[in-house]
């Protein structure tokens, strides 16, 4: 495997935000053990836009979960700046997510009983230096929809609310799990444009996991993952604009 690839690659913007060393994750599944990650070494840099590309079952979601503090590795080390996530307890991980991470889910996971603005406010109220819900929604182009309930919004609009919710607290890293997975191509592109804008304007380290290879063209780096190992890492000399993508 090309475990050392992360640290050996071409210059990437910023300093390492995440460092992973020999990360292995094993899920006991009854009689057998599933090795979801198998000795992963990886660095992610500040302000970087990274696409984790892999087929279903490749281990990319497990990697994202560990980066986001939703799960801890069976062995190996994970550091976010000077926080060691691999040894953190539940309370510390909750604190880490609250302070530093924004999540965007495949199925948006908005609170149906709250309006767009309130969904955002739910997060800004527990953050230290958030932007206002209105500003966050303006950032994703939904300034005119702030008082709508999720059921009154299209899928793409719901996902943009979810992004606004994720970035409103000015997180250091934005983790997106198949953000366009439930959307058609046109809507998907609008969502990707928003992610690009957040990465550009706020400088948020952005990690997108997807099985959609077309999305890889807009990343700084593309990390291919299969069978729990990092395969190949590509650096895009020229990043494509989301509008140029096709799938």
């Amino acid at each position: 495997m090309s475990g050392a690839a992360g640290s050996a690659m071409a210059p990437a913007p910023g300093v390492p935000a995440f460092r992973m060393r020999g990360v292995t994750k094993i899920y006991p599944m009854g009689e057998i053990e599933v090795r979801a990650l198998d000795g992963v070494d990886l660095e992610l840099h500040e302000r970087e836009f990274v696409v984790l590309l892999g087929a279903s079952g490749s281990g990319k979601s497990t990697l994202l979960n560990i980066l986001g503090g939703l799960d801890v590795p069976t062995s190996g080390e994970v550091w976010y700046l000077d926080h060691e996530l691999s040894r953190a307890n539940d309370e510390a991980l909750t604190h880490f997510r609250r302070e530093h991470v924004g999540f965007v889910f495949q199925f948006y996971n908005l609170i149906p009983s709250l309006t767009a603005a309130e969904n955002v406010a739910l997060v800004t109220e527990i953050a230290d230096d958030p932007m206002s819900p209105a500003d966050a929604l303006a950032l994703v182009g939904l300034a005119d929809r702030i008082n709508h309930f999720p059921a009154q919004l299209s899928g793409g609009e719901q996902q943009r609310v979810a992004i606004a919710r994720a970035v409103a607290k000015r997180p250091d890293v934005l983790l997106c799990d198949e953000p366009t997975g439930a959307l058609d191509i046109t809507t998907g592109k609008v969502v990707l444009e928003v992610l690009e804008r957040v990465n550009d304007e706020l400088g948020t380290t952005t990690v997108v996991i997807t099985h959609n290879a077309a999305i890889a063209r807009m990343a700084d780096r593309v990390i291919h993952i299969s069978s729990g190992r990092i395969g190949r890492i590509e650096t895009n000399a020229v990043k494509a604009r989301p509008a140029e993508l096709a799938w």
Partner: protein
Amino acid sequence: MRPAALDMKLLRDMWRLRGHLVAVALVAACGVATFVTMRGAYEGLVEARDYYYAQYRFADVFAQAKRAPRSLVARVAALPGVATVQARIVHEVTLDVPGFQDPVTVRLISVPDDGRPALNDLVLESGRYVAPRASDEVMIGEAFALAHDLKPGDSVSAVINGRWQRLRVVGIANSPEYVYVIGGAAIFPDNQRFGVFWMSRKALEAALDMEDAFNDLTLRLAPGADEKGIIRTLDVLLAPYGATGAHGRDEQISNQMLDGEIKTDRVTGIVIPAIFLAVAAFLIHNVLMRLIALQRSQIGVLKSFGYSDRVVAWHYVKLAVGAALVGGMIGIALGAWLGNGLADIYQRFFHMPRLEFRLSAENLLGVTLVCVAAAVSGAWPAVRQALRMPPAEAMRPEPPARFKPLLVERLGYVQLLSPAARMLFRNVERRPMRAAFSALAIALACALLVVGRFSLDALDRTIRVQFEDARRDDVQVGFYEPRSAQVKYDLAKLPGVMAVEAFRVVPARLRLGHRSKRTALFGLPQGAELHRIVDIDGRVTTLPPSGVVLSAGLARILHARPGSVITVEILEGERRVREVPVASIVEEPLGLYAYLDERPLADLLGEDIEYSNAYLRVDPLHLDELYQQIKRLPVVSGVSLREATIRSFLATIAENIVISTTILIVFACVIAAGVVYNGARIALSEHAVTLASLRILGFTRREVTGILLGEQALLAAIGIPVGLVLGYAICAWMVVLIETELYRLPLAITAHTYLYAAGLVAGAAVVSGAVVAWRVRHLDLVAVLKTRE
């Protein structure tokens, strides 16, 4: 044989939902247990009473006189409608029980020398019947024997007609006339200080100089006889002989108390189970609504495979019926156990033969059916929803819930609420009926506790008003014959007596229009300190110089108001009849009395002021000495001690109160815990994805738990105060329902009771909330990333 696939699904669903179903089953079990206990006790009491009254020939009509000739018996027997007549001699004496200092009053009742009593026959529990003409033999009541540990062969001594006499106990007996043993002026049973003895008629005749005479008449009527007419005739026949007015079973005190208990059991056995089963139905409804929402696509698949609506409906109804049947079985077992316990207590209280807990097949079947019906009625609206969905629609995900801004927001107070609070309120607004019923169920639990403690509060207030504010004597003595004012000076000379207040009590019949009531007329001195007239709220009424003060109970019977002029018919002496105005009406907790200044009463009687009783205030250091002397005074017919009466009564009922309060606490907690647990579990199921998403977004476990339980906390916060008000209303209703001619519970609920009810319900809610909160730990955060709502 392996169960059908659908039944396997059912069993696994039930296992998965076991927490919910246990909550439902326990609430149903409480309802069924209450029914089985109270209905069993009710039927047991009714059957035992009917058997006892029939087998031992309990009389229908009772009359007392001073001294009537035996020749009168034949005339009474000849009256149309009279089946059996029994003339007796009944006389109260003070008794000396070895090793017991306090004065004891005993009612001696004659029994025939030539066979068993024709009416009010005795159940001989041990020993033998008194020998004919034996002047030193008595059979004694079982309650008294137990209170003093007296057995056949023991001896006591009594002052009979001024002579000390040794009495040998030869038998222990019970009588249908004294199922509930209460002395003349007493309000509560005091088996240590009041008892009933039966003695040879000839011996009693000789001791009291009552040869060929009687002072007590009991009648058994033929079926269809005109009881009222016979009572009227009896009053006329006995009038020349000092009669105090005949009455039917309805005024016979033991029968009255027994009927009161039976009535309470019947009401409790219907109202309480109905509340519990309604709550169980509501819980079933919630569980199935959620289950069917979760299994929407499964229902669609089943239907598309060709399972009929009937099969699908029955599949879900079975789940409800299963929970109900489990609850029913637990309830029946629990009810049978509690019922047997209650029967034991009754047995100690009532001394009736054949008093046992009844567990009839028809009641068991009936309550099981009602329990199942409650479950099905709770399940049905949910099941009907499943049936209505066409298979194709069912297989699509449920359309997203529609929310709208809250009422407060529409009114422009948006800023008042945090987003988390808005989530909570919108969830409540979206399912207002569910929220309302949850709050109502919590309110009912709270109300049950208020009602349970209310009887204690009411009792406490009654005792305080009756025995601390109104009666402030230490000892009350009664005289065989009215005495002149000299008696006050004689009593004052007794050891330890610090104050004496003598008064007159005469039996009288009061009439207003066509209504009438036999009662006791009290002639009290002005400015009486040892017996004041105090109402239920502790206010003291001063006795007017003229006119009569009525207990409110008596005023209600007569429909009398202040200013009404009532006819007073004195039932002794010259039996004068006079018109007297009602001066005022006092809401007393116990008894039906009429009060008058001693002077107008003497005028009414056409006599000088004379006294039949006296209250004494006594130095506690000299009590024993005083008792020794009082017991030997020939003029004293009976003595009662205020403190002792209260203590004895409280000791008698303490156990009952502890048991019934404990049961009520457990039951109310089951409702509160069941409702909150059920609500929180369903909320957790409905909002699992939301809550896990919030955890991912950085909300702590505590914050997420707060959001989860916020709705239940809100419902409890609404339910508890509503429950306190509801509890008050039920108590007010119970006061009317339980009210008898003899007593009326004061509607006195203490702050302590409210705090206790609110605290206990809140505690039960917190505990069951905590149980559900523990599950927040197990929210699967990772799965949520891939979950489509």
